[in-house]
């Protein structure tokens, strides 16, 4: 633990722009390769102001999406800002059915992603904090013996940047970085809640198949992650599979009986399945659990709708399950 923490601390010190910035070799974790270069990473020389589309196309291509930067420009570029915003690079990634996985703010995670073969999109501030010049580039490797970061950047296919300089520009850019994952792929060192939240973004963007595959992978790796089950239920619901939705919600409730959102969604799935009595019971429970939270309004609305539903002539389609208290 300490062996791992010390290099991380050294790297952090370097990134903070201390006078005694350590070279890359001093901060590299013992198990990390001395050098990596993902030389097969495609390159798209950027046109003026188009580093966002160029960098994003590089990542998407590397994760198997056939795309040109020109096709991404209308999806991310903002003429009035002469650039592209971070949130929109994330959004555009979702539109191409890839999972934008935000990395932690330590260089360790950049290196772990490179070691798994994924280029990393980074935001750099090439000037001072108070007079910023924002730039997106793609980190494709590093060489600890020569103390350089390797980038696809702007019009340079292979830019070698002194590690401390790279670390400084990344630090002033807010240490923001992400990789694009194919649905179902989870980084070796992934953080469960960060990964599931990334999948929730795919769900929000309506990419249901990609979200379903990613939730399934998350459930296989972290079966105790309640939000992965909730998300799986939501995707099943959106795809019209009510029994699968109800079963996933049940698993989520077993893990966290007090989650108002899951109760609310279970109540909705029950109502749609003609199980009105149980639906009302779960809706009431959801309202009590949501009290005082941001969900209170939405959950109350669900209950009102369920209470207004007339008794169904059809039988409950979700028999044979044990509903939680």
């Amino acid at each position, binding site marked *: 633990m300490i062996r791992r923490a010390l290099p991380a601390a050294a790297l952090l010190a370097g990134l903070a722009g201390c006078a005694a910035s350590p070279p890359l070799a001093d901060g590299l974790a013992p198990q990390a390769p001395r050098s990596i270069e993902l030389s097969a990473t495609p390159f798209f020389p950027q046109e*003026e*102001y188009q*580093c*966002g589309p160029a*960098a994003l196309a590089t990542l998407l291509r590397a994760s198997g999406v056939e795309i040109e930067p020109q096709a991404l420009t*209308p*999806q*991310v570029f*903002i*003429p*009035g*800002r*002469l*650039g*592209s*915003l*971070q*949130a*929109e690079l*994330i*959004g555009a990634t979702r*539109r191409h059915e890839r999972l934008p996985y*935000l990395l932690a703010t330590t260089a360790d995670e950049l290196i772990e992603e490179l070691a798994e073969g994924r280029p990393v999109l980074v*935001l750099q501030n090439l000037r001072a904090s108070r*007079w*910023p*010049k*924002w*730039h*997106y580039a793609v980190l494709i490797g590093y060489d600890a013996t020569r103390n350089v970061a390797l980038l696809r950047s*702007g019009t340079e296919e292979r830019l070698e940047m002194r590690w401390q300089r790279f670390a400084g520009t990344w630090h002033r*850019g807010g240490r923001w970085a992400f990789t694009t994952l194919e649905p179902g792929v989870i980084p070796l060192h992934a953080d469960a809640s*960060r990964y*599931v*939240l990334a999948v*929730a*973004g795919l*769900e*929000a*963007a*309506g990419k249901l198949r990609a979200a379903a595959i990613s939730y399934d992978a998350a459930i296989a790796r972290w079966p105790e992650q309640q*939000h992965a089950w909730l*998300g799986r239920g*939501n995707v099943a*619901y*959106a795809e019209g599979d009510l029994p699968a939705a109800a079963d996933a919600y049940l698993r989520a409730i077993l893990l966290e009986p007090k989650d*108002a*959102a*899951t109760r*609310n*969604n279970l109540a*909705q799935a029950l109502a749609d399945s003609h199980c009105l009595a149980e639906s009302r019971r779960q809706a009431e429970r959801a309202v009590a659990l*949501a009290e005082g*939270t*941001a*969900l209170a309004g*939405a959950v109350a609305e*669900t209950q009102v*709708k*369920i209470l207004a539903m007339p008794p169904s002539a059809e039988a409950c389609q979700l028999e044979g399950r044990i509903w939680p208290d």
Partner: protein
Amino acid sequence: MHVERFRRSCVALISLSLVSLGLQAPAAAGIVGTADAVAAVQQQDHRGAVQDVLARADVREQMVGLGVDPAEVEARIAALTDAEVATLATRIEGAPAGGDALVVIGIVFVVLMILEFTGVIDIFKKA
């Protein structure tokens, strides 16, 4: 009216700047999106559905104002979570826009907003 909206924007700016990831999802009626559920648990998100809708309209308007093709705006916003939209609604002019362009952040303005929000100054007093 404008002052009140401005105040709310300040609150949103500061609280949302603490939230790095996108949250919330406009899902089917009656269903709470996973991102929203996570946000509620983490107590990071106190927006309601009404504010989310307003924020989307706000960002749509601002993006068109910044020259984005109106035909593209809808799909772009649809790819974002509500929290990302809410952040953009308050920061679209100041957020980092990577592009090799010269970008000037109104530091003084931001400082004034923070001071106003924290109650140190009160220059945006209602009439």
